[in-house]
């Protein structure tokens, strides 16, 4: 960003978007939250059930047939596809033809706020919505139609080892763009990212068939993992839409390779977002001899690596305590999803509530509309943040508890949970500490 000063030089934002950040959490709230998390954890150890209760995919009460017909109707599906494609097209057109100033161009807000943050409430309420909206899936479908090829079969079968790894990489790339890239809101950066992303995933789909998107598309995986906590889901046995306890949805999280990595990227990147606000880190980045982008990249990678290392240590300890547990790493990864959700809510609630309407107003043609006032005052936001993080923690502890009593021999079930409990407390206290910073 050196060179002649331009009157409307491209805004450089520490975050992808948004001019106002939430106030740092007051230590009172943080301590209250940490204490609640500790208390609940040990209460859970003593009081929770000793035989597994969650039935995963088999659970749920079917929704009325009319609702199912409506949801499965061809018209609904086509509308969703068309909406997704139209939204993606308009974002690309705004990026290509719109002004560079993110205060006048809704495209960066559409990507960073409406898509990235908006997928959280959408998936929580409606299930894995991105699967329906995903414009890449629709593009692939259209291309296959045009070439009269079967979209499900690719040239090669999808290797099982791949699992969610491409999604983890995609998430990391996206969060890097949002949090680290020198100019995340510039149309060029977004176009390059979206172009590369589209190319990679369309290639993947052509080679491996449309199944590629199920576990490799970062946004589908992100939306799918969050949708595990939705009260609505589809029962694989009979294809019925059901209302179910979010715990059962969570319990049914497919244990694929790369699941741990995906969850660690979700947690680590959100943690880095909180951390990157701290003046000390900003000073480090600004004065580092390595250059800013390199330092910030290292910071993001370190945050993800720290989350992952702690998790690996914990899995090792669990195996040490219980012995012979198959795949202890992936066995408990699902229990981190609610914790990641807690982080996401705590960090992005205000952003979504203010920048979301702002972006929509921009897209509808308003000239520099004012972002609405945040819906919650400072106290309300602090309470929400602590509640989100502690609730995520509690859900995680319960999910992990049920999984441990199922997998571990009864004698060791309590002691076997201890490493995981310690890990979750560490994540939760860490998450709260980041909000103070």
């Amino acid at each position: 960003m050196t060179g002649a000063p331009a009157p409307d030089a491209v805004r450089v934002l520490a975050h992808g978007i948004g001019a106002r950040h939430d106030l740092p959490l007051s230590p009172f709230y943080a301590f209250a939250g940490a204490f609640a998390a500790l208390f609940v954890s040990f209460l859970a150890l003593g009081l929770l059930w000793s035989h597994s209760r969650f039935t995963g995919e088999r659970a749920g009460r079917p929704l009325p047939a009319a609702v199912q017909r409506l949801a499965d109707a061809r018209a609904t599906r086509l509308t969703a596809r068309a909406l997704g494609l139209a939204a993606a097209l308009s974002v690309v057109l705004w990026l290509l033809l719109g002004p560079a100033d993110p205060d006048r161009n809704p495209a960066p807000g559409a990507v960073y706020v409406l898509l990235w943050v908006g997928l959280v409430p959408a998936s929580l309420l409606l299930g894995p919505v991105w699967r329906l909206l995903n414009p890449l899936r629709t593009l692939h479908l259209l291309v296959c139609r045009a070439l009269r090829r079967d979209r499900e079969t690719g040239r090669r079968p999808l290797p099982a080892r791949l699992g969610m790894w491409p999604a983890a990489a995609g998430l990391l790339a996206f969060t890097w763009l949002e949090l680290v890239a020198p100019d995340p809101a510039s149309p060029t950066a977004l176009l390059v990212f979206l172009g590369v992303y589209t190319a990679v995933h369309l290639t993947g789909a052509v080679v491996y068939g449309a199944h590629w998107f199920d576990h490799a598309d970062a946004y589908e995986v992100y939306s799918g993992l969050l949708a595990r906590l939705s009260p609505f889901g589809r029962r694989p046995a009979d294809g019925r839409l059901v209302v179910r306890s979010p715990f059962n949805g969570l319990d049914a999280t497919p244990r694929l390779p790369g699941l741990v990595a995906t969850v660690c990227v979700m947690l680590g990147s959100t943690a880095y977002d909180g951390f990157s606000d701290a003046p000390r880190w900003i000073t480090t980045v600004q004065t580092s001899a390595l250059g800013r982008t390199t330092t910030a990249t290292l910071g993001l990678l370190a945050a993800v690596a720290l989350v992952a290392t702690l998790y690996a240590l914990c899995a090792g300890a669990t195996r040490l305590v219980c012995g012979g547990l198959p795949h202890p790493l992936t066995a408990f990864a699902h229990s981190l999803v609610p914790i990641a959700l807690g982080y996401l809510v705590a960090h992005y609630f205000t952003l979504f509530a203010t920048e979301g309407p702002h972006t929509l107003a921009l897209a509808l043609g308003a000239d520099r509309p004012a972002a609405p006032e945040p819906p919650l005052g400072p106290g309300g936001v602090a309470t929400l943040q602590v509640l989100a993080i502690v609730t995520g923690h509690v859900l995680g502890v319960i999910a992990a508890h049920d999984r441990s009593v199922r997998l571990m021999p009864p004698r060791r079930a309590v002691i076997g949970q201890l490493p995981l409990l310690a890990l979750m407390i560490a994540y939760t206290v860490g998450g709260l500490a980041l909000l103070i910073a």
Partner: protein
Amino acid sequence: MNRARPARTALALLTAAVLALGAGACGGRATTHHKPGTSHAEDTGSNGRLLKADDGDGHRLRQVDADGAPEVDLAVRPDSEDGWNVHLTVRNFRFTPDSVGGGALAGRGHARLFLDGHPLARVYGAWFHLPESLLRTAGGGIRLTAGLYADDHTAWAVGSSPIRAAATLGKASASPDDETTMVDLAIKDGKVTPAPGRTEIAKGRTVRLRVRSDRDDVLHVHGYDKEAKLPAGRTVTVTFTADRTGLFEVETHESDLLLTQLVVR
């Protein structure tokens, strides 16, 4: 058929009335003070009781019941550049700039400002900027009073005293005072002194940023969207009122440096 005729007559009358009103409204120049044909004569209508007493400035009082009477509160805060900003909070009252000079309607009218008892200005809305020059012209003073007046210039009153609120104009705004948080920042060779940190500011205070950069740059206060050119080697002052809570970043745009974070709560 019988009913149609009165209906048609009524419609014709209504049309005539609308036309006459419309012509009257369009004919005269829009004015916020006296409409053509009106004067300072007090309205003798039934809204409130016209008292013999006046407000000290020749306007008679119009007494209404305390129950549901108009109320006013007055708040002043220093303007960041010149004088004061006056904020009137009214209840049971509406500012009616278009009908001043007309009859006294309950709960309507305008406000008047007095400085140490001398009339200063008429106010037709909630906010009013009081420039230093106006204060000087009025002979100076620190006691600012606001009273509510009806469209016929009678003063709304309760219990034979006018409805008023008062505030004190503190020290002159030109000099930094207790209400102002000063933040001094310097940029040299891409380094910020003092090192980027957080500045705690109570909501509503005036913030005065003084920034000096060793190269041409642009200063930007996020959230408040204040921008200022920073010519190399000159100290630039940016002043604003911190009236939104949150964490806001102060940055430069050319060198992309975070200077400080303002924590407004």
